[in-house]
């Protein structure tokens, strides 16, 4: 009888994780950072780190949350070296043919502070619980709740003002 190759099994495990999570982590990061290219690079970097440490990362409570945090840290630590005191590039400078509801959604999210966007995307797009979001972003559960409440209130305000 030939035994299972543990290396191949780990490789398969990572590949399954990658296929199930890369796109949604990328979209969550793109919404949070509002920079698609930076988000893509950050996800690739974080996934490479997860791959290198997969036996450990795979045992964590939430490997997707870990990858999101590593990618967010990577993007923001690079970014803070060149960060400037201005909002990210205005979408209106690069017009897309989005339906009106998409434009409303993007504009409303763009007006939130990044920490609120990060909490909202973790909760909504990554389906993380309050506790998992707190662990992923290294903040307290109380902070998750307050940022979520403030962010949702601001989104509601924007949505209503569009009506």
């Amino acid at each position, binding site marked *: 009888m030939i035994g299972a190759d543990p290396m191949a099994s780990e490789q398969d495990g990572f590949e399954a994780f990658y296929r199930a999570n890369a796109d949604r982590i990328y979209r969550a990061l793109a919404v949070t950072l509002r920079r698609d290219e930076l988000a893509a690079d950050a*996800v690739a970097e974080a996934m490479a780190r997860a*791959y290198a440490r997969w036996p450990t990362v795979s045992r964590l409570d939430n490997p997707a949350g870990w990858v999101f945090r590593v990618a967010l840290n990577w993007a923001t630590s690079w970014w803070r070296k060149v960060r*400037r005191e201005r909002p990210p*590039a205005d979408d209106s400078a690069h017009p897309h043919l989005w339906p009106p509801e998409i434009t409303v959604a993007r504009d409303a*999210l763009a007006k939130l502070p990044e920490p609120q966007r990060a909490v909202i995307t973790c909760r909504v797009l990554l389906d993380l619980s309050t506790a998992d979001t707190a662990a992923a972003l290294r903040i307290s559960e109380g*902070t998750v709740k307050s940022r979520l409440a403030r962010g949702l209130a601001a989104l509601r305000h924007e949505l209503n003002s569009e009506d």
Partner: protein
Amino acid sequence: MERIPQDLAEMVRAAARSAPGYPGDLADVHRRAGRRRNRQAAVSAAAVLVVLAGGGAGVAAWRAPAAPPELPAATAEPAPTVDPVATPPAQALILDDAAGRYHVPGGAEVEIGRDRQAGELRPDGVLVGHPVVGAPNWTKVVPLPDGGIVAFSSYDTKSAVDRSDRPDAAGLEYRLVVTGPDGRARIQRDIRRRNEQVTLLTADATTAYLWRPAGLFAHDLATGTERTVVKEPMINLGKVFGGLRHSDLSAGRLAMASTDDECLPLVIDVATGRPVSRIPLGKSDCFAVNRIRLSPDGTMLAVAYQYKSTGRTLPAAVALIRLSDGAVMARRDRIGMVDGVSLAVSLAWQDDHTLRGAEYPVAAGGVSEVNGFILTAR
């Protein structure tokens, strides 16, 4: 769990769907991982050569830690209060990355964060704020012995003009600001070189040490002239920006942890560029390094790191490691975590044998607590 209204959740999902699909692929991940392995192999091969040539003058042997890092609990203790006048610390304990309102138990509340002030936990247990002027978006602050500070920031002089976000963007300044004890900016200098990143490693009363792509530079605060301290090829990390995760400079020695293998910190002699020691933290099941700090005399390295465990979280520890033989001289376990939330940890040496540390939440709501601790080498 808090309910998220369905229409708002759908609004967020719609925004996410509007982003183009993820452009990366698994092959790219393998390529990046392969590049990391190759760089690690190159670094390890270089270290082996150093060991083979270990009889050479000025090169210390590379040895694994003599024993598992288990030490009596007595070596780790809560931070006692120390008279700061009688025993000025060799290094200031700045709360890196702190943002929000903080206090030490029983102490006054201090607001810390970018564009406001940097926080320092003094040896007497008092939390103080250092106002940072002239350096908006500062990312690094180093207190000076006279009460002044050196701050580094990136600053946009054309904030209203839409440009691509890159190091070569027009109108971007990398500012080095020296503030006197009176809180006024004495020196404010744009140290940017076009198309180059730059960051402040540390500073003293006369010199700021800057990482540039070409290596480590000593920047004369009075004149602005710079000299090379360590050339990039010497650090053997592939590249400074992107390859270097943590670094510290003390007593003519430079400690570095690379992005590719942060659990194998390297210490080199800046005068010769030759390795002094390489610390294989992997033997302590190191998973990630969060902070490194060289002792004032350059003979020990303090490392805050997370390690693998059988649990589903990554516990953290601080170890004091003697560079001459890799022996763990003290270790404190179970730091950087409270109620399942990770805390930031900052380190500074009180003297050549005593390390002070602080742990605290970052950007939490309300007023956060800063807790100090002390580790003393056996």
